[in-house]
């Protein structure tokens, strides 16, 4: 067996190598500037659904959506009859574009995901396959101050090519970082800003002294006054790496994203954001239990990103009774704007955004709210609501063509358009095709093996318990796996180790 297995391994590696080559999405001739996707059912998220309509894309932007759209003569027509057009989904919070979610240093505002973003990560390829056209890459939750994030599209050969919006947010966490407790976590957060103030004071003092030095004067006022006078003299290059991003965050150039793993972490996060004047651009990334603080979040009037685990389970302290809460319902009841995020570490269905939306609908959320939670809401939360999140004239042409309704788990992604360019085509997805081929071969092999086992003894193919056939009615052969149809059901897309 040993040599055969290694031969199979070689085959796999070869196939994967080929697949990687083929997966490069924007190879070949320059893409057409005008594309018309016609005949599909359009779910625009904003506005009424169109049963059969056309989306016209010009120069990467949607220019017309409707049942009756005049298609220019020079547009490339793509017939999507019977398919569903849905806005590209948005992953609002992910560290998977990075090699590790967090650096070891707890307070690291000087880090930027730009330095670690790896375009060749299979995660981006999977995102495309799952219909995600925008990813917010941000440091993980295990930090005090994490680093600066970036919004990217899952295509491109370099971080610059991928970038939709550079330097969007700075990550904070009020939930204890591993090895610390809440007391230490909060002390570290407060220290970060107290130290910043101290640094800014000293810097201002130094700048004032420097400005006097030019005129050969000595410092003539007390430190407090010197700090006040030095304040306007500070230029951006004067800040050191450690403090620059905190200053940018205070100035509103960077949003403040707070991770609140538990309900009790929400209050301190809101208090800190308010105290440091970061609340206006704050977003709260919640753990499952944090829904209990929905009241506090409602007062803060800021959007939230929910945990991939949509159910919160706990035991009653006295009776031991298990209580289960569906988190999105509680958040929706509080009237909060929320986005769903796919699970990073499960092979289960929670890694698909549209599945999570379907779970929401199943648990009582309106369909509109569930669909918005994976498209328009994350776009708004990322500050890109005017560009992304819906199929509307004027918006960026990020469109997913699905084989069926987005909330039907049997639907799969057929085509993905990003900026009006076809970024993904399932028919050309070598990895999926190869995977299916291998599975077919395995099924074939299993069938042969079964037949070989049955042959020596069995003469009658029918099983003993099978009902008698009626005369003249040719019964179908005994149940067996059907040879794969041209369109097989969607397979779980597994990441193969390289």
């Amino acid at each position, binding site marked *: 067996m040993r040599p055969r297995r290694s031969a199979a391994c070689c085959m796999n590696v070869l196939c994967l190598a080929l697949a990687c080559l083929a997966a490069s999405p924007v190879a070949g001739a320059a893409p057409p500037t005008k594309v018309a996707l016609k005949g599909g059912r359009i779910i625009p998220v904003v506005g009424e659904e169109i049963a059969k309509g056309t989306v016209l894309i010009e120069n990467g932007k949607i220019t017309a959506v409707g049942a009756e759209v005049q298609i220019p003569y020079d547009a490339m027509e793509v017939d999507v009859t019977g398919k569903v057009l849905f806005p590209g989904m948005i992953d609002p919070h992910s560290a998977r574009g990075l090699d590790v979610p967090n650096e070891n240093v707890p307070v690291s505002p000087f880090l930027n995901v730009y330095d670690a973003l790896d375009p060749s990560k299979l995660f981006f390829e999977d995102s495309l396959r799952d219909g995600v056209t925008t990813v917010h890459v941000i440091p993980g939750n295990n930090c005090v101050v994490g680093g600066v994030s970036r919004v990217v599209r899952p295509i491109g050969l370099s971080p610059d090519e991928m970038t939709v919006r550079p330097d969007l947010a700075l990550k904070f966490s009020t939930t204890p970082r591993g090895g610390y407790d809440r007391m230490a976590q909060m002390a570290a957060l407060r220290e970060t800003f107290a130290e910043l103030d101290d640094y800014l004071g000293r810097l201002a003092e130094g700048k004032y002294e420097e400005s006097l030095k030019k005129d050969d004067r000595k410092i003539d006022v007390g430190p407090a006054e010197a700090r006040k006078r030095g304040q306007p003299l500070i230029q951006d290059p004067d800040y050191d790496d450690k403090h620059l991003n905190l200053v940018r965050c205070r100035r509103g150039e960077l949003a403040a994203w707070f991770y609140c793993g538990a309900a*009790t972490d929400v209050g301190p996060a809101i208090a800190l954001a308010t105290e440091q004047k970061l609340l206006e651009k704050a977003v709260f990334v919640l753990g499952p239990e944090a829904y209990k603080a929905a009241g506090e979040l409602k007062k803060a009037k800021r959007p939230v990103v929910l945990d991939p685990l949509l159910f919160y389970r706990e035991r009653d302290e*006295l009776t031991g009774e298990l209580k289960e809460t569906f988190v999105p319902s509680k958040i929706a009841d509080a009237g909060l704007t929320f986005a769903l995020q796919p699970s990073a570490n499960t092979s289960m269905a929670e890694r698909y955004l549209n599945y999570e939306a379907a779970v929401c609908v199943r648990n009582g959320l309106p369909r509109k709210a569930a669909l918005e939670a994976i498209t328009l809401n994350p776009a708004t939360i990322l500050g890109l609501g005017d560009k992304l999140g819906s199929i509307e004239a004027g918006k960026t042409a990020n469109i997913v063509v699905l084989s069926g309704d987005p909330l039907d788990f049997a639907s799969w992604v057929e085509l993905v358009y990003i900026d009006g360019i076809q970024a993904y085509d399932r028919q050309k997805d070598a990895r999926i095709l190869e995977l299916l081929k291998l599975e077919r071969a395995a099924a074939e092999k299993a069938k042969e093996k079964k037949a070989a086992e049955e042959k020596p003894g069995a003469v009658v193919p029918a099983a003993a318990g099978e009902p008698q056939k009626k005369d003249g009615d040719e019964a179908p052969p005994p149940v067996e796996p059907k040879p794969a149809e041209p369109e097989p059901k969607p397979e779980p897309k597994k990441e193969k180790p390289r």
Partner: protein
Amino acid sequence: MSRAFLLLIVAMVSLMALPPMAGAQTSASFALRAGRIITAAPGQPGVMNGGVIIVRDGKIVAVGTDIAVPSDLPLIELPDATVMPGLVAAVSNVGVTRVPDESIGAAYRASDNFDRYADYRQVLASGVTTAHLSPGATRLMSGQGGVARLGGPASSRVLSAASDLTITLDPGAYNPPPIVEELVPPSSDNAIKPASAQRPSSRIGQLLALKEAVGEALKPPAGAKFDDHGAALARAWQANLPVRVQSQRQADLAGALAFLASNQRKGYIVGGTEAAALADQIAGANVPLVYTLSAPRSSPAANLGNDPEALEPDLRSLAALGRVRLALAVAPGQSVMGLRLAAATALRAGLTRERIIEAITRVPAEILGVADRVGSLAPGLDADLLVLSGDPLETTTHVLRVYAAGRLAFRAPGTDAVVVKAGTVWLGPDQWLTDGSVLIEKGKIVAVGKHVPTPPGASVIDGGPGSFMTPGLIDAYGHLGLQGDNTTTGPDLSLARLVGVADVAELRVARAGVTTVMVGPYRAAQSGSRIAAIKTAGDRRDRRVVSETAGLVFDVTDVDPASVSERLKPRLEAGKKYLEMWQKYEKDLAEWQKNKAEGKATQQPIGAPKEAEETAAPKVEDPITGTWTARLFGGPIRPEDEREGKIAFKLTGTAIEGRVLEPALPMDFKITGTLDGKRITGRLELETRGLGYPTFEGTIDKEDHCSGTVSLQGLTINFDMRRIDKSEVEFKVKSTRKKTTGKDGRPLPPKVDESLEPIKSILEKRIPAVVAATTSAQIDAVLDILVDQYDLPVVLLGPEGIEVHAGRLAEKNVGVVVPTDVMRRDEKNQWSVPGDVLSRRGVHVAFQSGGEDGARSLPMVGLYAVERGLSAETALAAMTIDAARMYRLDGRIGSLAPGREGDMVIFSGHPFEAGSRVERVIVGGEEVKP
């Protein structure tokens, strides 16, 4: 047919509605009336009896005894509970996690560690509602402490985010770990620094280290790196945050006092095991002390061994702290849940109750700086209330409820255990307990004594010191529940079938203290009528019926004394035969079982009695036997619901037996009846949960055709039957008993005859024969036959002029239920009480109401009897244990002893003192609402 019929039954049964669910109380505004209130407010020591607390939006608005309850607030009545402020734990382990490395860690705030959304009901259940949040006890300056409430809305839980600067002067804080600084930003320009050692390492260095830390914080050296802890210390120092010094030993305590004095800081000391030696200095410096009590809750304390330096906690040292402002807490590391009991042990040191209670409520709240929010019950404070089952320092007291910020935060899980206490517990004639109590579980008395067990969550009903508890009173003969219906009931029917949820009339009797009534019909049948023992309160039939058949009453008041024997004897003879049949069966069964056990079981039937064999009825002309198609219509059956079915009937003599063949029914029942010429009457042997059996009657109007009605509880439907087959149908289950032995030779029991069952019981001496007789001659005749001839238990009901028989009655142990009119004019025209005369000659007497809810005046009747000479003790015994004994129910009711029913009455004094009134009535462990 089946559906229609089932509809009928369902409609009838569904009349019994379920009680509505009680709504959960969630509002933070309410009024609470409690038996006792301990406010712990300054200048208000002691206990307030019967006070009211008004709470609005989570705050106390008013507390007092003479406060009108506003009409817009729900009133919570807790007449047996003691309400006090929630306990304040000045030392707690709530929220403690990891100890940071820094010896001076002033920037750490313990309140950050507190989970505002966590469920602290386990702690609340111990009575602690407020806890100090500690930043640690193993660093010189651990950080800033906080204070939190352990329940209520999350936003209101942190009472103080920074309440103190926590300092530990103790060997436990020596030798903190060295500090390693992180390299931020990590670069080659940043050299790795060696770990820097920290102080203190000895007692001599701890105060010095503190002094330096404070000095550097207030005046940072020029050009020094930013120090967050220094900055935090400076802020706390400038804000004059109280200093909390945690010390146990005399030397450290002295250092603590010196530190506070030299820096002119306000603060307090926690610990103080050796404080007794410094009591005067502590009191003189006006520094409060939180004395920590070592009271390990679940396992014994740590071993001290031979170390002469070991700290030995000694409660007696508390006695020396007379002038010190004192709060009590559990030792650090021990569970805060032991606070209440640990504080109660301070009674051993001679502390007063008032001082102990304020030492775990108001004083710690003042020390922690939250006395304007919690710690006492006064207007303006948060409604953190503790509802206790008794005195807070009593061992057996439990927390019943906790209100946090006016919201119900904990409620003891409901148990059906009830502890009833009274100043005097009457156990029987001339037998009583002073300050006794009774534990009732599942409606039955479990324990009686001076100190009964008090399970957690048990509700406590306390009559108070002057109260007098007796067993529930018994009406020895009445008609409660008959509602004027004077139908005669036969010996086969128990009046217990009338019992449902206690109604207004029944509760009226219960509230008068009468908890059991021996219910018999207004007119007894010639063959006797059953007497049922019924409780006057309760909502469950099975709990209300003490005995379905407590006696069989015969009425010979209008019988010629010479004919009394004729009236009673045939029944007794029939009963005797019936009893013999059963005794034989039991003997056979015992023998069979013995044989079987010895392996000698035989297939031979043992003594098959011939008279039980079925004699074939002559089938000359049989208008019944065969299969019939039947149609039910009319009444509540809608035309579209009409169904046809098939019924098989069989005629044996004049007895009809039938079964429904079609449609298939969910239950198998038989139809029994009799044929009388052309008329058939009978009933459907169908279990209808106490509604009786549906009856039918009809006429065979022509050959093979019959029509008539089926009725149940006044509802009537018509039927119409046609015979389609005359051949006999074999039923699966035979009703007529042909065999006396089962397949394995096991003897089968004889048929139960409901009308002879009570006679059997009398012959077995399990119930008495109750005979209503008036004249002396009648009584003579009754006693002749029942007592002398048959030697049966007898109770005489309402006899007149019975004193002449007193000797005979006492000798034969015949009970007498005195006439409803307890007083009688004797031949000298003097009022006398026959009961008195009888009881003095050793005859047991009991009282009857002879009415329905008129039974409520029974205790009053007793009072008149006492006025006329009956001893109060005898009157009480007559209404309790003696009445129960007459009916052979003394194992169930009539006394207070383990195993008896939980029925009792609490009077304000002895029940037969004119000034005593009924205070509380408990039936089956549940209090009857006034």
